[in-house]
């Protein structure tokens, strides 16, 4: 038997303009629980996708049981014994458990029809192995709790005789009791000799469960250590330990009046008593892990989601933002994190997208003023440096950075006072990032209030005047730029559940 069930050597994966993973190596021993940790965007997902054959790396080698392999598609990886349980479950809720366990596989009788008795038996065996013999394989999956649905997903993975099971943030949608159950199951699988690659954002889980841990940062391997040699602080340092380069052209405005005050925003299971103030002339950043409730806070105050309770004051006046339209009229602009899904109408031209949120401004006597629209789009293309052959270009044709600039232009056309930028630089190249930062600088200098939600700490530290850290729907702390705690370690500690010293 080989020393390692799966081994990666010098693997590099490039995307146009980005190196997602560079010279990565990892070795997973048979029957070990191997933790994988890193900041958002550190390359964990890329690693998972390379291991499961979704991405094909440009360089490097993959070994399974000491044999060199190359996966050209996910089926290859599955046949080689690498299975993955994704954060979002791939369950068809309307189908019974048995069909979900056997999705993509079949057991047939000699007649060519499905052999359901055997499928039920095997599904039951797989679930028993996971410690859940009580699950009725005839029941519709949607009727099970999240924890059990996940067990079905794991059963699906295990029943293909997996040697390595990758679990991508398996506890993110589970309750406390379900997490305990899951840990028991993971240990059972370990006892069966199955290796587990456990990806988690929760340090305590890693300490409780893992034998060894690998830390990734900027698409590279940082360290692999026995868990017993690690401490909380060591892990965090390994994750964030990088110097801030001069990629953030921060300029300072002067803090003006309070533009936005949010009091006790509550949304059941999503937000808990979120209160904060944002001022004109400053950039207020929201840091935290993905799913910490930052986007949800912004959506709630923008009227995109219903809130259970809470008050919003804009320039001291209490307002009700029942819909995005109302929020826009109250002077809020919201650049959403999902550019293609919520920011742009991809089938429409740059011109049209630019006026989308404020058509009134471009209407004269009930008709659109095409002259004014054309003039405006030429202005925007010039000032925001949108690279396009013409203003009539369909936005689907633009690169990510240029699309983002169109969305920014749309909000500038609203003459808003409060600009919310949710992950404004996600998926755009370095040059475009700087241009986005410059737009923020300009807004701040004009005395506008800028709120930036970002999962990239260097960006937060580089651009923010003040940082609010959120975790699990709650505000964990607030830091001024000139305070001692305005550094990666302290912000990360708060984001990971610790207190700011």
């Amino acid at each position, binding site marked *: 038997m080989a020393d390692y069930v799966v081994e990666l050597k010098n693997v590099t994966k490039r995307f146009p303009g980005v190196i997602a993973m560079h010279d990565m190596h990892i070795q997973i021993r048979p029957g070990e629980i191997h933790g994988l940790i890193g900041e958002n965007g550190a390359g964990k997902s890329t690693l998972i996708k390379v291991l499961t054959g979704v991405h094909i790396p440009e360089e490097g080698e993959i070994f399974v049981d000491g044999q060199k392999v190359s996966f050209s598609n996910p089926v290859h990886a599955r046949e080689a014994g690498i299975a993955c349980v994704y954060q979002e479950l791939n369950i068809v809720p309307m189908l019974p458990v048995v069909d979900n366990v056997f999705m993509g596989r079949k057991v047939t009788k000699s007649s060519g029809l499905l052999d359901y008795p055997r499928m039920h038996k095997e599904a039951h065996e797989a679930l028993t192995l996971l410690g859940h013999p009580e699950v009725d394989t005839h029941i519709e999956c949607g009727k099970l709790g999240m924890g059990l649905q996940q067990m079905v997903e794991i059963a699906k993975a295990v029943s293909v005789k997996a040697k390595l099971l990758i679990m991508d943030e398996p506890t993110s949608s589970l309750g406390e009791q379900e997490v305990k159950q899951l840990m028991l199951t993971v240990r059972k699988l370990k006892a069966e000799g199955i290796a587990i690659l456990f990806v988690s954002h929760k340090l305590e889980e890693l300490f409780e469960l893992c034998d060894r841990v690998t830390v990734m940062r900027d698409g590279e391997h940082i360290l692999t250590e026995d868990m017993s040699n690690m401490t909380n602080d060591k892990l965090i340092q390994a994750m964030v330990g990088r110097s801030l380069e001069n990629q953030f052209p921060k300029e300072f405005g002067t803090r003006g009046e309070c533009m936005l005050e949010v009091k006790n925003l509550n949304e059941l299971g999503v937000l808990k008593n979120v209160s904060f103030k944002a001022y004109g002339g400053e950039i207020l950043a929201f840091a935290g892990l993905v799913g910490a409730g930052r986007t949800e806070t912004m959506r709630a105050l923008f009227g995109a989601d219903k809130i259970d309770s809470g008050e919003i004051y804009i320039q001291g006046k209490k307002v009700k933002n029942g819909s995005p339209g109302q929020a826009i*009229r109250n002077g809020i602009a919201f650049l959403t994190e999902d550019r293609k*899904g919520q920011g742009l*109408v991809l*089938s429409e031209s740059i011109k*049209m997208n630019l006026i989308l949120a404020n058509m009134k401004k471009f209407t004269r006597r009930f008709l659109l003023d095409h002259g004014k629209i054309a003039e405006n789009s030429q202005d925007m293309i010039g000032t925001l440096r949108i690279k396009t052959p013409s203003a009539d270009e369909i936005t689907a044709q633009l690169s990510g950075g240029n699309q983002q600039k169109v969305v920014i232009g749309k909000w500038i056309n609203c003459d808003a006072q409060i600009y919310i930028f949710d992950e404004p630089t996600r998926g755009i190249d370095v040059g475009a990032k700087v241009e986005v930062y410059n737009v923020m600088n300009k807004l701040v200098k004009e005395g506008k209030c800028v709120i930036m939600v970002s999962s990239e700490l260097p960006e937060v530290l580089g651009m923010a005047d003040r940082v609010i850290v959120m975790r699990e729907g709650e505000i964990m702390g607030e830091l001024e730029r000139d305070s001692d705690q305005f550094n990666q370690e302290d912000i990360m500690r708060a984001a990971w559940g610790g207190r700011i010293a």
Partner: protein
Amino acid sequence: MKSNEKKTGIGDILMKLGPLLVLALLFIIFTITLPGRFLQVPNLMNILKQTSVNCLIASGMLLALITAGIDLSVGYNAILATCLIGVMMQSGITNPFLLIICAILVSTFCGFMNGTLLTRLDLPHPFVSTLGMKFVLWGLALLITHSQTIGFANKGIDAVLWIGKATIFPIGFPVCFILVVIFYILFHIFLNHTPLGRQIYCVGGNPEAARMSGIRSKDVLTIVYTISGFMCGVSGIVLAGRLNTANTASAGTFDTDAIAACIIGGASFRGGKGTIWGCMIGAMLIATIRNGLNLFSAGNDIQYIVIGLVIIGAVTIDVFRGKMEANARKMANAKK
């Protein structure tokens, strides 16, 4: 870069003119194969007359399709309007304005209900609400007419019938097609030059982005189906003159004809695209095929087969065009 731009420009124009070219080709073929019969003024006026109702219904359908929806109730909504005119006439109301206003009001209300059901009850797709509405309106039309055919001739409502029946100028240009042209110009202005018109495209292209930009997507949808209902009312009035009778059986293929006209004209079930002129060309194409095949004494059987194939052909070309565009984009990106 510049030459590249020009290239796509010409290709784009050719593709946009695609249905028009097919229409021209069809005209040439019929002119040659039907000498002295097809390319005659009376016959051409006949085509315009035959296409009018479809043009009117299809304009409303187009709006629904642009929002990635559909309105299956159009045929019976139009027939209901015709039947209402008939029933009112039987009960002694002959004031043309009153008849016209009532027909339009009822049809518009039905359209409004389509939109309301869709947006306020959050029904998953207008296919459901408008399919249901189709049967409700069918039943209502049967109910008010007691399943009888009502004849309009010489009952003192000639002013209403004039719209669908009359012709003007020595060449006998149909009044109903003038109505079509007027409405199409209005639709052109509405769709391209008013905020609401552009919002319809945006809601169709990406409802979530539209909502997050402050557009009241639900209201936009309700208005779309209300307009579709309104156009059904107008069609119902034209139908009264065209058919001279009110008969529920004549709704036939109004709904599918309208969808076909829009799709041939470049609209997509995925929403976000389609033009009113494309819609007109689609409707003309269908009417021309019917007319030409009629002159060949081909029956309904052949006509249906040919029109079916034309629809499939049009959609295939559309999909093909989409793939070509995607490929061109990939190539352009690769060059960068």
